[in-house]
Each structure stands twice: as C-alpha cells, then as structure tokens.
C-alpha cells in the first residue's frame, strides 16, 4: 500500500471542491487513505509503457438480412 502522505488532506479537500461534493472533516482522513491505497499502483505506473484499453465497441460482420 502507498504512503498516505502521497495524497494530502488538502488535495482531498481540493478534489472534493472541484467535484462539488461535501465530505465531512471527520471522514477526510478515511477518504484520503481509501484513495491513496487505490492510487498507489496508478502513481507507480509509466503511463506510456502499458497497454491501451480494449476497444469499447467491436463490430461483427453483418448477418444476411439484418443487423447483428
């Protein structure tokens, strides 16, 4: 798991403001830990080196007489 200090409480507050949601001060540390743990792998990533996501849509050849 990441060091929670990588995501500061102030950054959590800023993100909440930008998203237009209110997070109780008493729960800010909890949210910071939740996000920091989840973000650890993403922050360790070389974003140019990994694969692209699969296409959201693929098309199969149309069957005779109609759409798939």
């Amino acid at each position, binding site marked *: 798991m990441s060091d929670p200090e990588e995501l500061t409480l102030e950054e959590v507050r800023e993100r*909440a403001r930008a998203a237009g949601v209110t997070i109780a001060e008493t729960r800010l540390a909890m949210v910071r830990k939740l996000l920091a*743990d*989840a973000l*650890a*792998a993403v922050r360790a990533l070389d*974003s140019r080196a990994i694969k692209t996501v699969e296409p959201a849509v693929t098309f199969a050849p149309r069957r005779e007489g109609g759409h798939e």
Partner: protein
Amino acid sequence: MSEELAYAGIAELGARYRKRALSPVEVTQALLARIEKLDPVLHAFVTLTPDRAMADARAAEEALRRGDPRPLLGIPVGHKDIYLTQGIRTTGGSALLADWIPDSDATCVGRWRTAGTVLLGKLITHEFAFGIQFPGHRFPPARNPWSLEHIPGGSSSGSGAALAAGLVVGATGSDTGGSIRGPAAFCGIVGLKPTYGRASRAGVLSLSWTLDHTGPMARTVEDCAYLLQAMAGHDPADPASSRAPVEDYLAPLRRDIRGVRLGVPRDYFFDAIDPEVERAFNEALDTLRRLGAEVRDVRIPSLAATHSFLLILMAEAFAYHERDIRAHPELYGDVLRERILAGALVTASEYMQAQRIRTEICHETAEVLRGVDVLVTPTTGKPATPFTQAHNPDFGFPKSNMPPFNLTGSPTLALPCGFSSSGLPLSFQLAGRAFEEGTVLRVGHAYERATAWHARRPPL
C-alpha cells in the same frame, strides 16, 4: 425440524419429494419455523415472504404430483436484497429504498421462479452492496452463524449467514470485489462467481457495471451447479450478457480430475496471509494432488497493481448514485456515504489508467490460463473479521484476494477447506477460463467429495 433436513441439498430434497417421503409444503413450513427461531439473532433476512413461500410450495407440490421433473421444484431459496422482486420490497440494505416495492422481477429471480423454487424472503445485503451497516442503521447487519461477534462477510451477508444456518437451500449473491466469495469463505459455504456476462444483472441494483457479477450461493458445489443451470443464459436486458452457449453444469461433476492442471499464482495472493489459512490451503493442494491433479506454481506479476480496481469501482459507484447521494446524503449510511463520494474524487485519467492496468492483468491471466486449466488460491487471507474491527471507520477497504477475478471476469468458485483454531471457516478459490464454469465446478466437487469441511455445522 431436524438438523439433517435443514441442511439437505437439492438432489436429496428432490429425491425425497419424488418418493413422496417429504413435501415442499412440509419443508417450507419447517424452514419458516427455523427462521422464526434463529433469525432474530442472525438478521439474515430483511423481508420474510411466508405467504408467497407457502403458495410456491403448494404449487410445487401440485407439479410434483403431475411428475414435473424440474430439479429446483420446491427448493426453498432467498434472494439478496439488491435483486428486484415484483411486489416484494427491495431495500438494497438502504434507508433510501426502505419501502420500495418493484413492479418486476430481476431476470435471475424470474428464472429461479420459473424453475419452481420457493421464495422464503429477501436476504440482507451490505448497503448497496458496498458498506456494512453501522450501529443505528435502519437495518441491522447479518451475523456470522459460526461466531456472532464476527461478520459473515459481504456484501451478500444475509445469503452467507442464511445458508450456514440452514435457513435456505440456495441463495443469490452478487460479486463486484468478492461479495459472493467473501461470505462463502467466512460462513463455510460455497459461492460461485460465474464468468462476466454468464448470469444476467438486469434488475439487480448496480455497484460497478464493469465489475458486477451475479451468481449462486449454496452449501455444496453440486447445489451451486444446479442453481447456476437455472440462472445462466443470454438476457437482452443486460448489455453485458453473453450469447455463449450454456453448458450442462452437472455433467462435469461426474468426472474425476486426473490430469487437470492447476496453477498456484505465487504473486499477490500470499502477501500477509494468516498461517492457519496458508496451512489449510496447502493441505487442500495436497488433496487435489492425491486426486490426480497436476499442481504447479505460476506467475502473474501485474496482479501487484490489483488494488487500483477500487478506482474503477468507486468512480462507477458514484456515477450510479450521483443523483440520489447529492439529493439525499442523509439517507446513505455512515461511512458508505463517504466511500461513494470518494468516487467523485477519482479523475478521468486515473479511471482510465486503472482500466489500462486491468487490461494488463487480463492479458497476463489469460496467458497463464493457456498453460493451466484452473488457478487456485486462498479465497481470503484471514478468517472472518470481528465486528469491532469492521465497524472502525478507518478499517477501509483492505487488500483482498478476490478482486483479481472481478477484473478478469473469470468464473471463480469459493469453497471450504478447513477451520481456524478459533473455529472459523477457511476457504480456497478456483478460477478458470471464461465460460468454463464446468471445469471449476468439477475440481471443486472432486475436492468436496474427498473432504468433509462442507458438512460441518455452526453451533447454533
């Protein structure tokens, strides 16, 4: 009601029904009485449907008289309370939907109904399948029949508790990050998360579209096979539903597992594992070897990044709940509210990076599953969590062995493999290639027949 009858399986009940040694009406009455006796402490049910149950049981009895061969005829079940039920309230374990009565059934509910099951009631779920109910919540959380001081796992908590306590024969569950397999592990029962797209999610409250799976929970692998058979298949109402043919899930159970290749991924799944869990898991591997399976270690390095799945889950959960949580935050449970709001804090770039990591994990897992037939790992790193720990707001969302197979969509079966020194169930999971539910059921069934863990009963 005898203990033996409370824990009878689908094939046994069906055989006794057809010999006229027992009737669905008798079994239903007996289970309703058992629920009345035990559930005030367990809280597995959020809504009981005795009138519906008796009507279903009488209809099943009549059908049996006519020689109806459906295997689920007269089998008492419960549905996780995120599955919509026509005319029966569906709360999602939430104050927001506390009195909501849907006007249609979820596809899976309808399919089990058509199969002739008897609906005993709705089973409590963690709120919106994401947050355990804290003290003071509108609905109390289910308790673990093996130890009332421990959680039964979640989010299909009522399903796990009801099965372990002998209150239902089968139950529906849903699994976004382990919500079928976790309760199966903590309650000493069996849970199957089928392949993504195998069982419909239409009419089931969503947590995270790209990770949500529906599936059956039961006390044996064979019962899971029966229940999946009645659940699986294409549903145009679920955009992720697959058109892959539905195989016969009972047939593979008749085969042994000689020559089946099992892979043990040594990355990720054994970090911070409890020694008792590891010992039980290694003993399970020995049993599988004795049964003729070939066991080898495999590597899936990208699993180290699994926990990023939470970014996907939280962002999608917020997208689903955004309107309601902005309008009525007070109707969301304490802590759950912040967990969902945290999804609003995930940036688009972070969500996409998490999906790219997921793609990497899918590719590596698929590659490994070319060399082995099934992956085997402990289901959870520890036995059931005490309520005192789960009710600590800082408990968070600990790293878990289950999300990798939500990311890959692989069919995954959790089943009991022992008990801790304090008497809590332990479990391992079998994950196979997409749409090869038959293979994981076959391996699980062979293991189950060679051991007796599934036959132990909690001290109720």
